[in-house]
């Protein structure tokens, strides 16, 4: 069974990067173009893990986490924050809202998969083969 990722990011480039990496790594990939759409489609998609950007129109990443963790949806799935903000307060704020972890942009395939592995256990991916760097 593939692990299903819901990626919420307003940047098409980032969505495409995520899609390429995740689909190649054997994840099922669903995306939303902003926070509002991501929250709205959450229950239909029923992802195993959510990756969300912070700076987005309509509803930002903090809002996404708050709504997903809130009593309405009461989501228990891991939520990874995808952001260029490496500032500690940014991470702290995301975590207070209920984020599970973070991926710092720009990300590479390996750190993305490693982050997913730590929150979902999904490890059906051998970086050594795909990256072509080793062995």
């Amino acid at each position, binding site marked *: *069974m593939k692990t299903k990722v819901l990626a919420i990011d307003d940047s098409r480039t980032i969505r495409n990067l995520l899609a*390429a990496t995740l689909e190649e790594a054997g994840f099922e990939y669903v995306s939303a173009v902003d926070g509002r759409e991501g929250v709205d489609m959450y229950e239909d998609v029923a992802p195993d893990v959510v990756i969300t950007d912070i700076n987005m129109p309509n509803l930002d990443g903090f809002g996404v986490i708050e709504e997903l963790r809130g009593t309405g949806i009461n989501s228990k799935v891991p939520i990874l924050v995808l952001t260029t903000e490496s500032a500690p307060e940014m991470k702290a704020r995301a975590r207070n809202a209920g984020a599970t972890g973070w991926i710092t942009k720009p990300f*590479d395939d*390996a750190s993305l998969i490693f982050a997913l592995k730590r929150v979902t256990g999904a*490890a*059906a991916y051998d*970086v050594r083969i795909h990256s072509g*760097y080793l062995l």
Partner: protein
Amino acid sequence: MSGSIQDTFFEECEELLEATDEGLSAIEGGDHDPEVVNAVFRAVHSIKGGAGAFGLNELVAFAHRFETVFDEVRANRMELTDPLVQLLLRSCDHLYNLVAVARDGGETDQEHHDMLIEALDKYIPEEEEDLTFEPMGLGGPMDIGAIDLPGIATEETYQIHFRPLKDMYSTGNEPIFLFQALKDMGTLEVTLDDSELPGFDAIDPEEVYLSWNLVLTTSEPRSSVEAVFEFVEGLCELSIDGDGDADADAAALAALEAAFGSAPAEAPPEAEPTVMVEETPAAPFEQPAPAPAPEAVPEVAGKQASAPKAETAKSEQRGPNPTLRVDLERADRLINAVGELIINHSMLAQQIANLDVADVRDVETELEGFKNLARDIQEGVMSIRAQPVKPLFQRMARIVREASSATDKSCKLVTEGENTEVDKTVIERLADPLTHILRNAVDHGVEKPEDRIAAGKDKVGEIRLSASHRSGSVCIEVRDDGAGVNRPRVKQIAIEKGLIPENAELTDSEIDNLLFLPGFSTAKEVSKLSGRGVGMDVVKNAVTGLGGRINISSNPGKGSTFTIILPLTLAVMDGMVVSVADQTMVVPITSIVETMRGNDDMINNLGADGTLLSIRGSFVPICDVAGALGLRKEDSDQPPGVYLLVETETGQRSALAVDDIHDQRQVVIKSLDGVCGEIAGVAAATILGDGKIAMILDPESILAASPAAAFDTERRMSNAS
């Protein structure tokens, strides 16, 4: 893979830059709505994020500065003063350049780059000046040498004590996955410490009672082990004791290494009985609400099959208005097919007309329906290629800004009809001529600020760029409120350069249109801006190359207007079907000014120099098309019956003599490229209703090849007067 994603990135950059531009322009216009400010911030932020993924460091660094300054504005820590807005606008222009350099190669203007960075840095508060940003993306460098290979490095053993705090479970972190990540790094022994677990009755479901002792033997550095616990730092009691190297590499690299050196992926967690046996029964008691119970997974997964919004990278959507990205080639193939369909219809119609059947009315009715459908499809397909001129116009705003600052003039560009849609290729090929016209308007049209004030005008010159649809054509107008064409000077220059005779008597409009003559340039010295030895004739060539026309009208002291009329599409055009020496040919309607039947009284013979057609008191040279194409001898007796008055690139009129006019209709343009070489006087070909191929004539080159061309302006002027 990353290549096509990079293409997407550049496409998206265009959109983001447009959004930035638009937002900044709104801000410049006094709109300080937080949503506008936020939109600009997000756009630049997204550019930075994407650029980072492709290792475009210069772009990242610049976007980061822009973003940092703008974040100050967003957080209301900084006022949007006029100089700041101007700086941001120029920085946005520079972002365009950086993106273009990243995409197409080339050099950035380093001086300009440094100047902007310095200016932006002045707005960045002290504590945020640490702008180091290390991209580590797909295109970024990777330190392979630093990665420890399993089996090569020596193994270390770590004693790890891990006791989650309550808060850890509310963030969706799950111990078992952390253990799995650790296990991938080497050999892991897990021991559950449930000594704190109270009796069943005393269990508080919100409380945590479990902790774990782990023994990890791995060749990974200590930093990799720590990286596994990165997300739960502060959410658990954690101690890692071992002889592992504490001076390991930076955490980011370590994370990479950990994944690189991971154990074979097929090893599932169940293979480690120590973990599962102790973990599974404990879970429901210990963390009923906050943590995801492993049993929940299959249920969640069961819904996947019916998930309606599943979307792959191939069907990416953006924004509320769903769009579909299609290869241009596919759209063009469709356009071609529709062209064939229309030709097919014409042929069918012709054949039915030729049928020897008494009553064809029913067939004709059906055929009419077919024709309407074909036209609908054609319009639909054309609209696929059509794009709003907005991005082009936005680029022009930059051109005007740059030109204004280069000439120390102050001008603003006002755009109208930005949503007018024009064929993609037309838009692309319009960029250069439009750039030239606008630079020209700033450089030669709009006066210096002091002159404007003296003339009682606003200090800031206004250039109005508008687009509109006008009866099947697109009309692009550039109107400035400058001094207008200096006619005495233009005429004098034209005389000096030998373009017109000294005694020439020209109308105002004729003088204005002298600007389009090849080699004409009114600038006293070639200016840095609109100089480069390129004149308006190049603009005119570009426009006529698109099957369009350009005109200038000017009002002294009030300004000038350039009007460009373009066809909606390059695939189909309106043509006049004529016959020339028993051949059927098509002349583009756009180049025909007037048609008339000739009679002997109108023709004035000039002997060897050719013939003139007299029209309402003026004379235009006659060019016999059949003769020019070598289809009939020049001195043939047969007098051509019809004259098509055409206007050439230089504004000069000539009469094309043809035998007869048949029809005016839309024809599908078929390129002759690769079919036969270039034929003087022939632009392309088309297929007519009867299935015959007809040449589409190019009046310009016919005239150039005919004796009428020798009959230049000078002769015309002196004869006319």
